[in-house]
């Protein structure tokens, strides 16, 4: 048994196995790379070589299309990343603290608002940075904020974000008994394309760019949800928040805002 050569054309098994395998491979390749692409009616290839390369999966340029339609409003041009703002230095936080002096009127001396402006203490650094950028670019507008960010540099915005992110979240300002999460917060409304809030704004599941909501003012949250729903606020990337807010009823907006406002920070 062991004297028979294994890898040799004299071994019938070897020859047949290799030839059959090669034949199947070659035939299917000819069909897949040449015949089928050349018969496509939906996709026009510029020639046989283009067809073969496309079938092989080489990256092709997009087919020429009509000009891109630009929005008649400003959208955000921030690129979100969970890592670009890592490692805020003490210097950065210190500079941010100085710059933040002018924000205390609305956002409180320690980043906790006494009015219905958003609390910033302990907010995610990327969130503050992105909102400042959007105010500056005009993607988000607000009579109070827009003029105040006009002269901020990129570094100023990073430092401010670092400072507020560094501040400890304080005990809740809005006192109330926290009830169970309403349906819209806990389960969302799948058929209206509303995912549960915590799948982006949560602690286990978090989507970069989503804000920390616990303890935020209910008035502020409701105003923002309504602004997203109407499109008046449109600095969310690719409509991700507008898509959700549009489907919410006003009762659900109120319930969700109340729920988050009543959570400890």
């Amino acid at each position, binding site marked *: 048994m062991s004297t028979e050569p294994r890898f040799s054309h004299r071994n019938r098994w070897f020859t047949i196995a290799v030839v059959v395998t090669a034949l199947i491979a070659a035939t*299917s390749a000819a*069909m897949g790379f040449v*015949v*089928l*692409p050349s*018969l*496509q*009616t*939906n*996709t026009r290839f510029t020639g046989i070589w283009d067809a073969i390369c*496309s*079938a092989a*999966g*080489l*990256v*092709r*340029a*997009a087919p020429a*299309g*009509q000009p*891109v*339609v*630009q*929005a*008649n409003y400003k*959208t*955000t*041009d921030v*690129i*979100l*990343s969970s890592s670009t703002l890592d490692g805020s230095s003490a210097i950065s936080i210190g500079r941010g603290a100085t710059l933040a002096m002018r924000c205390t009127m609305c956002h409180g001396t320690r980043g906790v608002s006494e009015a219905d402006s958003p609390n910033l203490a302990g907010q995610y650094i990327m969130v503050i940075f992105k909102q400042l950028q959007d105010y500056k670019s005009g993607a988000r507008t607000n009579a109070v904020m827009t003029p105040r960010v006009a002269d901020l540099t990129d570094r100023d915005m990073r430092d401010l974000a670092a400072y507020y992110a560094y501040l400890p979240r304080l005990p809740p300002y809005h006192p109330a008994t926290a009830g169970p999460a309403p349906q819209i917060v806990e389960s*969302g*409304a*799948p*058929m209206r*394309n*509303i*995912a*549960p809030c*915590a*799948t*982006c704004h*949560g602690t*286990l*599941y978090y*989507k970069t760019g989503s804000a920390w909501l616990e303890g935020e003012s209910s008035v502020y949250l409701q105003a923002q949800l309504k602004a997203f729903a109407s*499109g008046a606020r449109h600095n969310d*990337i*690719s*409509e*991700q928040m507008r*898509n*959700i807010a*549009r489907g919410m009823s006003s009762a659900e907006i109120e319930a969700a805002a109340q729920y988050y406002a009543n959570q400890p920070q």
Partner: protein
Amino acid sequence: MTEHADSATVAARMERRWGTVSIGIILALVFMAAYIGVHQGVMPQPRVETVDPRTLHIAGEFIESNLGTAAEPDGSVTVRAIGQQYSFTPQCIVVPADTQVTIRATSADVIHGFLIEHSNVNTMLVPGYISTIVTRFPAPSERLMPCHEFCGAGHEGMWGRIKVINKAAFAKLAADQRRMTCVAQ
């Protein structure tokens, strides 16, 4: 011994016959696939195209104002859409019936699925790559368009819709909009 040899020959002959039948079945199946491919010109994802998911919203064909359905000069329509945690934009896609529809879609973050119920539109959205599907909807209807690939804890909330409307109604829409959706404002 000869009886043994005979029965061995019979067995070998039966096996050869069955082997032939098996190969015949396989070849018939392959032939069917090839025939449909030739006859209907169906090629899944005719070309590979790449795109940077980080900058979809800043420039290029996937900025929000360019998403939705565009009427092409040749009478067909092109739908552009993106998937993101946890929605499609546009949430509701509108297309004319009995018209060639080219869907170009991609993902802004993780892997999503793109499925239109009761149709053969079914593709993966993989961040970094553009998916293309060419299809045709025979008659007006309204269908669900769920994400069919796990994309995170909110996956079960990722349902879009598609409305197929008649050609005249679509032409009316197209008269005063360059990109159409059926998202309720």
